[in-house]
Every structure is written in structure tokens, then in C-alpha cells.
């Protein structure tokens, strides 16, 4: 995997406004290829066809929440090792620790810096693959 650039990101988020902001940030500003899903089921259904390099996912969502979605994706062999970044409005330390235990390489807190996010994800990716 070494040396491969970050290109395709699966983004799961139930808030349409935030989806729009994220599209603007990652697609327009960061130039990434983004698949946006509004819930866990869509994500699980559409991810295999998209083959993302990284999964960026909200924690609290109606129905299937972030951790449950990640668990479902991890059960598929192709996503067993895909880096996951959670994005959450709950930033209490024990919450962050729990998410890291689920295998997240990072937890980004809301509100995030839309201008800096593409660079940050790129840096995270670089340090993860190397």
C-alpha cells in the first residue's frame, strides 16, 4: 500500500448541511473523490462498489450508528484494514477512547475546520500508510 495517495473517501453523515460543507471542503478544496451516504445501511450497501481508501464517518446517526456501521464494514474482508476516522460532536475523553478501541485511526471533533480538513486527512493518511 505504501506510497499510494489518498483519493477515495467514503463519508457517512446524516446531516444534509454538514454533507454539503464536507463536499465543498473535500471535493472542491481537497480534490478527493467522495461518496456520501446518509445512513449506515446505504454505506454498507454502496461501499463495496466504491472501494474507498478511507472511511470518514459520523458517530451519532439514526438507526445504524457509526460504530455499528464500521463493525458491519469490517466484517467484509475488503474493509478489514481500511483506515477509519470518526467525526463526532461528543468529545469527552472516555468517548474518544472508546472510538479508538474500535480501531479508528483518529477522532475528529465537530465543529471541524473545513479549510484545514483536506490537508489534515492527507497527513493522517500519509502517516498511516507509512
Amino acid at each position, binding site marked *: 500500500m505504501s506510497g499510494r495517495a489518498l483519493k477515495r473517501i467514503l463519508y457517512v453523515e446524516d*446531516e444534509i448541511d454538514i454533507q454539503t460543507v464536507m463536499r*465543498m471542503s473535500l471535493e472542491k478544496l481537497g480534490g478527493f473523490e467522495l461518496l456520501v451516504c446518509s445512513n449506515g445501511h446505504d454505506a454498507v450497501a454502496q461501499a463495496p462498489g466504491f472501494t474507498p481508501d478511507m472511511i470518514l464517518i459520523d458517530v451519532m446517526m439514526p438507526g445504524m450508528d457509526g460504530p455499528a456501521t464500521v463493525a458491519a464494514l469490517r466484517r467484509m474482508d475488503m474493509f478489514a484494514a481500511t483506515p477509519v476516522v470518526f467525526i463526532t*460532536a461528543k468529545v469527552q475523553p472516555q468517548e474518544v477512547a472508546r472510538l479508538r478501541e474500535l480501531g479508528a485511526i483518529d477522532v475528529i471533533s465537530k465543529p471541524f475546520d*473545513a479549510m484545514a480538513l483536506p490537508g489534515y486527512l492527507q497527513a493522517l493518511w500519509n502517516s498511516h500508510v507509512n
Partner: protein
Amino acid sequence: MPRFTIGRKLWLGYAFFIGMLLLIFAIAIAFNMLTRGATSDRERSENFVRAIASFRTNLLTTEDAQRGLVITGDDSYLATYREAIERVRDDLAELERLNSPAAQQPARLANVRDLLGLALAQSTRAVETRRNAGFEAARDVVRDQAAPQMTRLHNAIDELVTGERLFRTIEEARLASQTQTANRVLWGIIGCIVVIGALGAFFLQRTLTRRLGKLSRAAERFGQGELDQRVAMRGNDEISDLATSFNAMADTVQKQRRALEQRESQSRAIFNNAADGIMTVDGAGMVQEVNPSAAFAFGRDAAGMTGRKASGFFAETEDHLYVIVREQLADPGHRPREMTIRRPDGTTLPVEITMQRAVHDDGRPIVICIMRDVTERKRIDQLKNEFVSTVSHELRTPLTSINGSLELVLGNVTGEIPTEARTMLTIAQNNARRLVRLINDILDMEKIESGHIAFDFRQLDVGELARQAADANRGYAERYGVTVELVAGSATGKVYGDGDRLQQVLANLLSNAIKYSPAGAAVELALIEAGETIRFEVRDRGPGIPHEFQNRIFDKFAQADASDARQKGGTGLGLSIAKSIVERHGGTIGFTTSPAGTVFTFTLPALSAAITAPTAAEQLSTGPRVLICEDDADVATLLRMMLLQGGYEADVARTASQAKSMLERYSYAAMTLDLALPDQDGISLIREIRTRETGPPIPIVVVSITATERADELNGDVVGIVDWIQKPIDQPRLIESIRRATLGAERQPRILHVEDDLDILRVTSVVLRDIADMVSATSVTEAKALLLANRYDLVLLDITLRDGSGLELLPLLNGGTESTPVIIFSADEMPRDISRAVTAALVKSHTSNELLARTIETLIQRGSRIRTVQQELSA
């Protein structure tokens, strides 16, 4: 009116008796004198009678001599005659001296004297006549004149004698009468004394005994609890005074008793009706009394709890309870501790408990425990946490969109925007950011206050801390045209703290200083060593803090004024949070201000020199050895320093495998264990240690961030875990746990086995593990090091070793004040001259395991006896 007190009565009695005694004495003297006079007179009378007798005899002698001369005419009678006359005259003189002066006696004596003169004259004429005229004439003179004269003289003498006798008789009679009178008077006086004495005694008896008896009976009944006893006592003396005092005392006692009873009934009422559970426990940890609330909380019958061990009613382990009780009793003002009640039906109840020492009625010390059911509070806490969490989520979600949109628009991602629109959007962005900060601060505040924040305590270099803080705030300072300067020559040192949280404090102080500084000014950050603390100072050149605001500055939402808050963009929570963080680090925060600027300071306890430079303490320490199993170098150093200060020696293992090899090689009194080790999970390490152990289980103190959560995992299937200590580490608790752990370990005798054959070492450790802690050394060098560092109860010694002879160790073992028993356990026969220096020698191939164990057991017991005797001798 003068009081007729008992004292005065007694004095009067004494005076009376003394007077009477004096009287008796006077009478006796008078009587004595009287008697003495009578005696001398009697003597005189006897002498007088004797003198008369002599007088008569001598008179008869003159007559005889005169007759002889007259009849015979022999002149030889003349000498006798004259001699007798001389004696008669002498006797007369004696009679005149002794004659009684009474009555006619002097006249009678004078008559005798006259008649004597006449008689002697006639007698002498008769003698003359005989010599001149012959017998016939002389016979006539004698017959007619001398003889009748003599007869008259004798008659006069008879009269004198009769008179004297009469006088004597009268005198005796008078004396007898006087003696009788004196006796009567004496007996009379004695009778008087007896009668008056008896009367006095009777009255005194009436005054004293009867009245004192009355008082004494009242006092006795009072003592038996009849508190209404009072004494009515007539008179005006000491006893009536005593009765008055008794009555006053009885009044007071009765009043106090009533007050006491009232208080007691109040206390009883409080005890019985208090909403909080109250339980008293005696020194042995047995329940004494339980109030209804406590009994309800425990889900038990109060009567069924008394006399049973209090610890049995709680879910905590005895060790944990022991720590809590110690902590509570050590400091009466201690914060309540949370404990969990275990009910008979299996349910649990969280309570907050405070303990207080007290003394029972019978003088025994007891502990009063007051318990409050905190179920509701915990539920509310839980609700609040959920609420805060939810609210933060709900607020942050829209803010994410707002903030993100504004950033992208202002970042020209959507294309160039007109200047006026940019101004408006910037305002929106600033306020959106402020809202985010506010939410973050509120959450921080809530977390710190509720104690939910987990501080990650580590050793931190204060210089580094200050540099990071200055660097992090330079960008912000530039916006205000202010510089941030680290003051040169600042103190260096280390503190124990959470780096991120301390950065938060410094950032807050620095950003405040920057905000209020005039453009072009410098904000200075200085570090100052102040005794055992390190002081951080943030100095600005701002306008100073308004006087009326100074005492509210650390309050929540405190800002000089609302418009100021908006202008400066703060939330009003920063200083309050900073204060909480500093206080959680054991420090203090404060400020000094003037119109020329403000200095905010906070202090942190410095890690002492002993902790950062351990060698001195290390060399001194000779305590039991503890193995620290901890992967974080800083924490390991800290634990080591804490243990060294507590009087222990410590080794550090950074990984599970290192710990295992050290445990195999050396003997440790206890070990501390971090559950998160790089190469093995702590819990599985504990299980492995237990299965591999050959001796008694090593006491383990778990020191970990996740200590309490993971305590349940073991579910009690591993013995020997002394305590679970949560990080950050509480030194007193750590030392206490280790102390308890090593107390148990010290009871086992320690044996050093010096042997290079590992198989034999393994065999002896198995054979001897039940009676001793085995330490092994495989070379002379290693054994020497161990012997210099530690004391062993016995040494098992092989002679042939890789790097020399085991016998080289003997001087080390027999030197000093106490020699260590040594058993040579070798394949070689022992040289004869060595045998005196050792206690026993066993030859390997000839010695069964039982013999080895038995020999060692005997020696250990003897060794302890010898030591006991030595201690007694030296004491």
C-alpha cells in the same frame, strides 16, 4: 450571735477537762504536803519517846551509883555517878529540842527540868553526907529527902510521856480526818468529770452521729439514684452547712441529669429518625448499633446486624475498607467516601460515608459511620451527564454547518466575495467560533467540577511547558501587535501534572494578558522557584483589573463587563477553569494588579530533589525489595521514588517478559503492576505468574489507569492482589498497600541458595517453598552482592562454583554481630577445618529431600530462637 459550732463545743470540752486535771493536780500537791508534815511530826514524837526512855535509864543509873556509894562508901561509885549525871543532862537537852510545842507539854518539861535539879541536888547531898557523916546520916538523907524527890521526878516524867502520847493520838486523828476529806474531794471531782464527760459525749453523739447518719443515709440513697433526696438539718454548725451543700449539689446533679436525659432523648430521637443511616462500630470492626435508616439501607434487621463484622455488609474488599477507614479517621474533616452496601437479596446500594472517632459510654473507642444513600444523586449525575452530552452534540451539529460554510465561503472556495459581504461574514464567523469556545468551556467546567475529567499525570519539565505555551500563543499575540517573551534565567525543574491541561491554563493566562496589553507591549512569562513549589508568572502591561471586579475574577462567567466580554471575545469561564485545573494539581492561583499592569501567578508542587536524583536515597534504603512492572519510564521512575521514600528498594521491569525473568531470578517482597504492558496484558501476566510460582504467591499491587474497571475481570480467582490503585498515584496509599503486602512476606524466613546447577536450584525451591522464601545465586560474585545487600535467615552453600569456592563467602556470613546459619550442600566432602564455621554439612548424593527440608526447618527455628535471645540480651 456567735455560732455554737462543733469545733467550739469540742474546744470547750477540752478546756473543761484540762481545768479539772489542774484542780486534781493542785489537790494532790496540797495533800502531799500535808502528809509530809504529819510524817515528820510522827518521827519527832518517836524520837522524843526514845529520848525519855534514855533519860529514865540514865536517871536510874545515877540512883544506883548514889545507893552504891551510900551503902558501901566506896568512892569508885563516884565516877559512875558523875558520868550518869552528865548523860541525864544531855538527855534533858535532847528532850527540850524534841519536845512538842503543843498544850501543856512545854510546862510539863519545865517541871521535869526543875524536879530533876532538886532530885540531883538531894542525891548529891546524900553522897556528900556519906563521905562526911557516914552511912547512918546519908541513909537518912536518902530516905527522907532524895528518894521522895526522885519519886516526884519520875511522876513528872510519866506526866510528860502521857502528854506526848495524847498529843500523838490527837494528831493522828486529825491527819486521818484530813486524808479522808482530801479523798472525798478527789473522788468528787473525778465523779464530776465522768458525769460531765458522759453528758458531753452523749450530746456530741446526738449532734454528730445521729445527724451525720441522717446525712450519710441521704447520700447513700442519692447515690443509688433517688435524685430527689434532700436533708433537713436543724442547727447552725458544720453539719448543717454540709447538709446545705449536699442539697445544693443534689439540686445541680438532678438538674444536670434532667438536661442529660433530655439531650439523650434528643440524640436518641435523632438517631432513630435521621434520614441518614447511622452505624457505630467498635475497635474490632463489629457493629454495635444501627439506626432504622441504616438498617433499611442495609436491607437487614438492626438486631441481626449488631455484633457482626461491619465489613461483611459492604461490597468493598476488606483491604479497600481498611484504606477508607484509615483515611477517614486520620482526618476528621475528610470528604465523604463512596462505598457500596451489599444487601442480603444481592442488590447493592451506593452510599456516601463519613466516619468519626468517638468514645463509648464504657470508655472503649468506637467509630460512628454516617451513611447517605446516593442512588438518587448518582441517577441525577447520570442524567446530567447525558444531558450535557446531548446538548453539546445538538449545539455542535448546527455549528458545524455554520462554521464550515463560513470558513469555506471566506476561504474563497465558492469564489471571490465582495468586501462588505466579507465583513458581515467575518462577524458571523467570529461569533460562531465564540459559541464553540463557550460550549467547550462549559463542558470543561462541568467535567472538572464533577471530577469526571481524567488527568493524565506525568513528570513534566517546566521550561518545556513554558516554551510550548509561549510558542502556541505567539500567533494570537501577533494579531494584537503584542509579543510573548520568556524571561531569561527562569527556574528549571519538574512538576507532576497533565501537560495538556497545564497548557490550557497557560494559554488562558497568556491570551488574557495579550488581549489586555496595549499594542507594541510585551507579555512576559517567568518561572520562579519558591521553596517546594514552582511559580509561573504571566505579566502584562495592560490597564489593570478594576477594583470592584478583583474578588470575582475567578467566578464563572465573570468578566469586567458584558460589552468588554463581547469586545475581547472571551467566555468568562477561562479563569474559573484555570483555577480548577491548578487546584487539582495541588497548586494555587492568584494575581497582583496595578494600573501599570497585572501579574497572574500560579504555583505547582515541584518534584523534590530526592525524587529527581534518587541515588542518595537509594543507597540508604535497605528495606524490602519491590518489583515495579511499568512500561512508561516516567511513571516507573515516579513509582520507584515513591517506594524509595517509603523505605523500600525497587527494581523496574519495563515489559512483562522482563518482569517474569526478574521474578525468577530474585526474590521480591511485592510487585506493582501496570495492566497495560506492551508485550502482554497485565491480567494474563498475573495469571501466568501465579501458575509459574514455586514459592508463596507474591503480593501484587495493580497500579493502572484502568485499575478499578478491570478489577472485576479477575473475579477473585487470583489470590494475592493487595490493592488496585488508580493513576494518578496516591503515594500514601501506595506505600500503605506495599507495607501491608510486605508485612505478610516478611514472616517467611529467607534462604539464599548459592548453587550453579539450575536443576538443583529448581529442586530446592520446590522442596523448601512451603517453609521459606528462596533466593538463588549462581556465582560467588552474585552471592556476595546479595549478601551485602540483604540479610538471610539461612544460606545453603555449594562449594564448587564457576567463579570460585563457596567457602569464600563464609567470612561475610560469620562477620558482624549476628552470624547466619550456613549449610554446606555440596557434592564434595568438606575439609575438616571448615566444619567449625558452618552449621551443618550435607553431601548431595547422600541427602534425601526430606532430610534437607527437615535440617533447614530445624535450623530456621533454632536461628529465630537464637535471635530472640540475642535481642533480649541486648535489650
